[in-house]
């Protein structure tokens, strides 16, 4: 059974129908890249997976659980990491505290243990030296790596990335992508909305192209980048 199993979801914002019947599933350990034009509904689909948006229709099952109707959404969200374009590190906490506080408050991890785990994951993303830095004193690439570490501290079974490198200066993109590549290699299940086609080509097991609120075409990076079937996909990919 797939880890993520979405059937026919619809989502409207006012009169604007952003998702028009999307079926989407992800197997355990799979890395899926979501690509498509601006406004095609990629973020909305991703945000539905941890219920930051609620679908109007359709079903979403993750880890075999109906998350649209789950009683304890917070317990579910704790198992799903999310990284945002704007990083969204907590401004009132330093780097280490950003990684410690969620563990202590949500998982009720003892402080000392939480601290050790935080340092471990900060080390993994190469940010251990900045543990006591203020989040406003580090670069965008460093912020995104801390945000990844913060998620990893929760030991997620699934990670969602919404254009994690789009707000970064070009020279910082690689440091974030290489951390993500590492996670993919370790077998973490990841869904990545991205405009980094090289990343999608190298790392994704499957590439999904969305347009106008539906999935138009999907396949292996090989199929999608060398031999797209759909005209819209072709037109989109030719812009890269």
């Amino acid at each position: 059974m797939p880890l993520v199993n979405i059937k026919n979801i619809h989502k409207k914002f006012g009169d604007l129908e952003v998702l028009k019947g999307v079926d989407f599933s992800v197997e355990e350990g799979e890395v899926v890249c979501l690509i498509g034009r601006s406004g095609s509904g990629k973020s909305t689909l991703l945000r539905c997976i941890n219920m930051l948006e609620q679908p109007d229709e359709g079903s979403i099952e993750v880890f075999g659980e109906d998350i649209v109707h789950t009683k304890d959404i917070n317990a579910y969200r704790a198992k799903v990491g999310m990284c945002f374009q704007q990083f969204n590190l907590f401004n009132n906490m330093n780097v280490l505290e950003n990684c410690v506080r969620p563990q202590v408050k949500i998982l009720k991890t003892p402080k000392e243990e939480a601290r050790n785990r935080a340092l471990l994951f900060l080390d993994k993303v190469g940010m251990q030296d900045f543990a006591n830095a203020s989040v406003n004193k580090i670069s965008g690439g460093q912020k995104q790596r801390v945000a990844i570490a913060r998620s990893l501290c929760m030991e997620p079974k699934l990670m969602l990335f919404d254009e994690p490198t789009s707000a970064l200066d070009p020279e910082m993109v690689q440091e974030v992508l290489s951390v993500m590549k590492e996670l993919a290699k370790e077998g973490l299940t990841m869904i990545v909305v991205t405009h980094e086609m090289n990343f999608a080509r190298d790392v994704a097991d499957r590439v999904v192209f969305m347009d106008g609120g539906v999935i138009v075409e999907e396949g292996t990076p090989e199929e999608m980048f060398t031999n797209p079937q759909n005209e819209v996909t072709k037109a989109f990919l030719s812009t890269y």
Partner: protein
Amino acid sequence: MERFIQNILKILNTYGSSLWLGVKTTLFVALTGTLIGLVLGLIVGGIRAIKLDYNASKASKASKKAIDILLNIYIAIFRGTPMMVQALFIYYLLLDYIHWTYLQAAVVVISINTGAYMAEIVRSGIQAVDVGQSEAARSLGMSNWQTMMNVILPQAIKNAFPAIGNEFIVNIKDSSVLMIISITELMFQAKSIAGSTFLFTETYFIEAIIYLILTSIAAIILNMIEKRMNQTKVSLPQSVTAPENIAYAVEKENIGGNSDYASR
């Protein structure tokens, strides 16, 4: 002119201790009123800012709505009527049930009054916190309450600090209306001194100078605290990579706070 100065010295000499009592009472009432008012404002502003989860039960949605209406009524009443009237009304209303002193009543009234203003200040402080902050908290699995306490309120208080400090200065001045219920604050003391000396101009001149000194010192201290807070951590909107002082100025403008402490 010489006479004026002589009279002032005479008043200070004879009534120095009652003026000093007035200063102490004024500061006590203004400070406790601001602090208790802040706590009230955080509770009221926090409750009003909480958006219930999409999956909250019908009952909790209905009670949230009822609570919001009550809180709005509280804010409207206490911001929409003079504190002098509030003081008289509440003092006499409750006098039969709790045999309270004037001072107790004064502290209660100024606290509730300040709370209504603080609730609005806290609300705009909360609105100035980037939505990404609460989205990140919720995506990690924090509850509404945890998000509010750990992420939103600490930043909101910081955002709103200039406006919060301003309430203290306003209270130093506005506590003067509480003389209506005979507490020995500065205004009350000055009025009795003027009444027994008949040196009205001189007495009220002294009073004005004392208020000016108190509010100036308070403004200096608040400015120092504010500078301190900004040195340690600046809460920038994350997307902004502009120089920090520019971004911070923009953010403060958003919530209508400013550092030139002035009256409302």
